[in-house]
């Protein structure tokens, strides 16, 4: 069995009376792409923010690379990275300048070469000297992905990375992430509302609802657990809708 990269044990987070995450436990194995799914407000982003140390959990434990996040936050984050299309960069700085700042932050060797290489990889070389303010959402997302790859992370958190991308670029990004996982063994925690994408990308899934884990396993196991019937193919879209509609009718 592959070693564990991240162990989340009995994680909870409350904001006043509202429990955003309740007693969530899961494990991410080295080199796997794990999906974190759930309807809006299920607790996915809060969980990711706790894994990044941006929010302090109310209870529970987060261990990454075998180390406690609370005690070793900086060493752990040095080998991780994160991107979300909902997070922005300083808008007046150019793409290159933003990447320089983050490359310095991660102590990336041969900064210039690494940045040029990533600009090329994500097809944004022509945007190199453009201020972030003048980029489209899709271009911004690609800059975020380039930033997320700067330090060649062992553990990558991708929060809806293809949300603003057109189908062609989204396909390219998925292929790139799969290649990264295959060739470098990068472990990825992936959230998306595109169920077909999750089926393609993720070997295992954690399904959150109202802050709790309602199902976990492979896409086919999740499908069967939520739909409560035997299936030959994963049908995450259907499973997702079942949970979302149960919520509305409840």
């Amino acid at each position, binding site marked *: 069995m592959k070693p564990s990269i991240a162990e989340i044990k009995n994680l909870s987070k409350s904001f006043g009376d509202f429990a955003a995450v309740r007693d969530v436990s899961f494990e991410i194995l080295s080199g796997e792409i794990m999906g974190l799914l759930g309807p809006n407000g299920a607790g996915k982003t809060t969980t990711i923010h706790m894994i990044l140390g941006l929010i302090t959990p109310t209870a529970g434990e987060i261990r990454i690379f075998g180390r406690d996040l609370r005690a070793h936050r900086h060493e752990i984050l040095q080998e991780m990275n994160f991107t979300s299309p909902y997070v922005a*960069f300083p808008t007046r700085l150019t793409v290159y300048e933003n990447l320089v700042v983050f490359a310095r932050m991660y102590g990336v060797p041969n900064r210039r070469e690494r940045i040029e290489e990533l600009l090329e990889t994500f097809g944004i070389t022509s945007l190199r000297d453009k201020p972030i303010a003048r980029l489209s959402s899709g271009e911004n997302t690609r800059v975020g992905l380039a930033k997320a790859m700067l330090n060649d992370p062992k553990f990558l958190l991708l929060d809806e990375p293809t949300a603003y991308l057109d189908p062609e670029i989204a396909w390219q990004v998925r292929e790139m992430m799969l290649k990264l996982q295959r060739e470098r063994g990068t472990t990825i925690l992936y959230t998306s509302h595109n169920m077909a994408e999750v089926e393609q990308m993720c070997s295992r899934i954690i399904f959150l609802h109202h802050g709790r884990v309602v199902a976990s396993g492979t896409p086919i196991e999740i499908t069967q657990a939520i739909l409560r019937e035997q299936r030959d193919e994963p049908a995450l879209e259907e499973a997702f809708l079942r949970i979302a509609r149960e919520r509305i009718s409840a």
Partner: protein
Amino acid sequence: MKANHVTAVIVRHVYEVRRNLDRVLDMVYWPVLDIILWGFFTIYLTRGNTLHPDLVSFLLGASILWGLFYSFQRDMTVGFLDELWSRNLINLFSCPLGVWEYITGLICVNLLKSLVGFGCASAIALVAYKFDIGPMLVTFLPYLAILLLFAFAVGIIMTGLVVRYTTRIQNLAWSFAGLLQPVSCVFYPIKSLPKALRAIAWMLPTTHAFEGMRQVLAGHGFSPTHFAWGMGLNLVYLVFAMFFFEWIFGVARDNGLLVKIE
């Protein structure tokens, strides 16, 4: 504390200055405007021939030094507001960046920015009003240290308040020093204040700095008492500022404020 983290914060804000006209104006506009205003005023006072020339020139010096204090504390807060306005906080603090590395980077870059403003104001004073702050500066160095340390403390506290209350209190970045100025006795001695305000004034390191400078100008030499009080109070304010920031940043992490203020 890692040097590359501090440098990254400095580089980020140097790029901002290069690209953002507002930051250039902040850096130069107010110090220059102040010196022009006080320059004309001192010309008017000198023509009356009723005041000691050193006291008249002190007005110009005090204006330049207060400008240094004001711009430093303002730029600390505005630096953090820049992260908030550009929704960059999640990117920044999901990096292996420590909060004190971030603050140190801000202090370094704002020291540079304040010195640019200070340099511009001094150059204008020299060229337009034949006022050379240089010789005065050497004598005033200990008091200058008091002003800068207090600016660090106020800047850290203001930044902490922005972490907690976000843009709702952003105007404090520009206005808080104005609140301190009347009780800091920048242009007049402390005895000019009503008695009730004097007690408050003595609690401010800035008052001791400017009182000490006036004592030097009056020919009474360096004042160890004002220097000791100024530094002692700074120590108290700095320790308070650091604990306050550490605490409020912890509260922000607990309440999820770092991600909510995006």
